[in-house]
């Protein structure tokens, strides 16, 4: 239906784009090492996939992602709840988090290297720093926007303390929590790639850097595609479907049929 049609339309657009790209490459305006042809990129992609280097790198990156995002989510959740609960925490820590969000996460890297050395811990730090702010903000505003009616109804039925949070406030804020996690995930992914670019431990970012050092523009482009694909896939497979499930259950989807 609707979704499939839009998917098809996008696929057709991509095919046209690749064809145009191939055409421009065939014209030979720029040399091959500056402007790669689709065929070269695809073959680099194929090589990378078949000899397992891409897969290994992607797995290493994803593993870092899971750890970094896990830490960021736990921190952001705790901080977000604290900000929503207490005006004092909101006016202090909340403002700090909001302010620090303007700092691009990669700017934490030099500090992280001085603290942790040239290792995975430094990359993880950058990932956490990149994601924790948006998760915190999404969760605190999600909780602050839970309709008072739900809370009042629950309180007259005897809900209080932890029960009120676990049975009413968190479920009511779930759509906002998922949206925050999704945004946090994409921020974490960007921070991770930036961090990996500067390091020599296995990962997609490192592959990208190796491609540059070898002056292999086909590999550079192929790895970029792989990074894009992994980012899109994880976000859509996990978060978009979670979001859709929650919306469907709560009747938040439009179902006009038109």
């Amino acid at each position, binding site marked *: 239906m609707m979704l499939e049609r839009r998917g098809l339309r996008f696929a057709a657009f991509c095919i046209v784009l690749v064809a145009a790209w191939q055409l421009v490459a065939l014209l030979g305006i720029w040399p091959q090492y500056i402007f790669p042809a689709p065929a070269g990129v695809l073959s680099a992609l194929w090589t990378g996939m078949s000899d397992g280097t891409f897969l290994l790198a992607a797995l290493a990156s994803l593993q870092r992602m899971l750890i970094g995002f896990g830490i960021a989510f736990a921190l952001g959740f705790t901080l977000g709840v604290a900000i929503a609960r207490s005006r004092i925490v909101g006016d202090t820590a909340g403002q700090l988090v909001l302010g620090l969000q303007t700092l691009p996460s990669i700017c934490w890297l030099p500090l992280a290297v001085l603290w942790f050395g040239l290792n995975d811990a430094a990359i993880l730090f950058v990932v956490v720093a990149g994601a924790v702010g948006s998760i915190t903000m999404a969760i605190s505003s999600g909780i602050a926007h839970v309709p008072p009616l739900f809370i009042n*109804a629950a309180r007259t039925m005897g809900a209080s303390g932890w029960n009120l949070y676990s049975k009413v406030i968190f*479920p009511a804020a779930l759509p906002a929590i998922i949206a925050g996690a999704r945004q946090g995930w994409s921020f974490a992914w960007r921070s991770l790639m930036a961090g990996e670019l500067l390091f020599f431990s296995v990962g997609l970012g490192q592959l990208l850097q190796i491609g540059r050092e070898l002056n292999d523009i086909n590999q550079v482009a192929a790895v970029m595609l792989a990074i894009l694909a992994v980012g899109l896939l994880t976000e859509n497979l996990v978060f978009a479907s979670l979001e859709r499930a929650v919306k469907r259950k709560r009747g938040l989807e439009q179902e006009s049929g038109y």
Partner: protein
Amino acid sequence: MNRPDVESRADKIRLEGVHKGFPMGQDRKGRLLALQNVDIAIKQGEFVCIVGPTGCGKTTILNIIAGLAKPDRGRVLVDGREVGGPAPDRVVMFQEAALFPWLTVIENVEFGLEMQGVGRAERRKRAEKHLSLVRLSHFRDSFVHELSGGMKQRVALARALAMDPDILLMDEPFAALDAQTRDRFHLELQQIWMKTKKTILFVTHNVSEAVCLGDRVLVLSYRPGRIKKEFTVDRPRPREYRTTPELACITAMVLDELRGEVDKAAKEEMG
């Protein structure tokens, strides 16, 4: 009043000189006096209805008794003790149903019981019983957004009754039902009340509904809300509006009392 058996009982709910204002206007500096000097005494096991024009403070009174809003002045006593917050002995049926969209119908009905620490099997049993009472057993596993407005109100009624509270605070609970269904629930509610001896405070716009259900009908004045007049309805139960001609007569008297207030409300709201 001529009800010695009722008069001798203890007060279940008491409001003494209750004032309540709200901040008003864009700068929230103005003050809207919603309730002024409200005194209400409700006996154990009484069924009392409140009528009044829209915006006169009916919901505010329920919120104050529920412990969801604090009076600016005056005292609120339940069982002789001052109210210090919400408690499950006073369950509210909100005007907007207030069901949880992340739970199924039956899970909504079970919610209060779960908060009371009732075990899973027992609460399922009680929830099923009350869902069948409101004729919604077929919809037990539906989600809230799949229900009509009237069905939501019935689920909210089941949820409140399942908790078996001492006091039921009901805010226009049947407003979204069609006339026949409403008549049926009037009977059902009276039967439950006669069996369980709950204390019920029932808010409605519908004067004939109030007269049909209440031992007493309190008429609230338009802003600031005050108890303007009170009518005692001394007819045997369960009453049916259609078959009890005296009710129409009392309804006319209540409407007369109300007319002036509704006019005032209309004038003020038009500016």
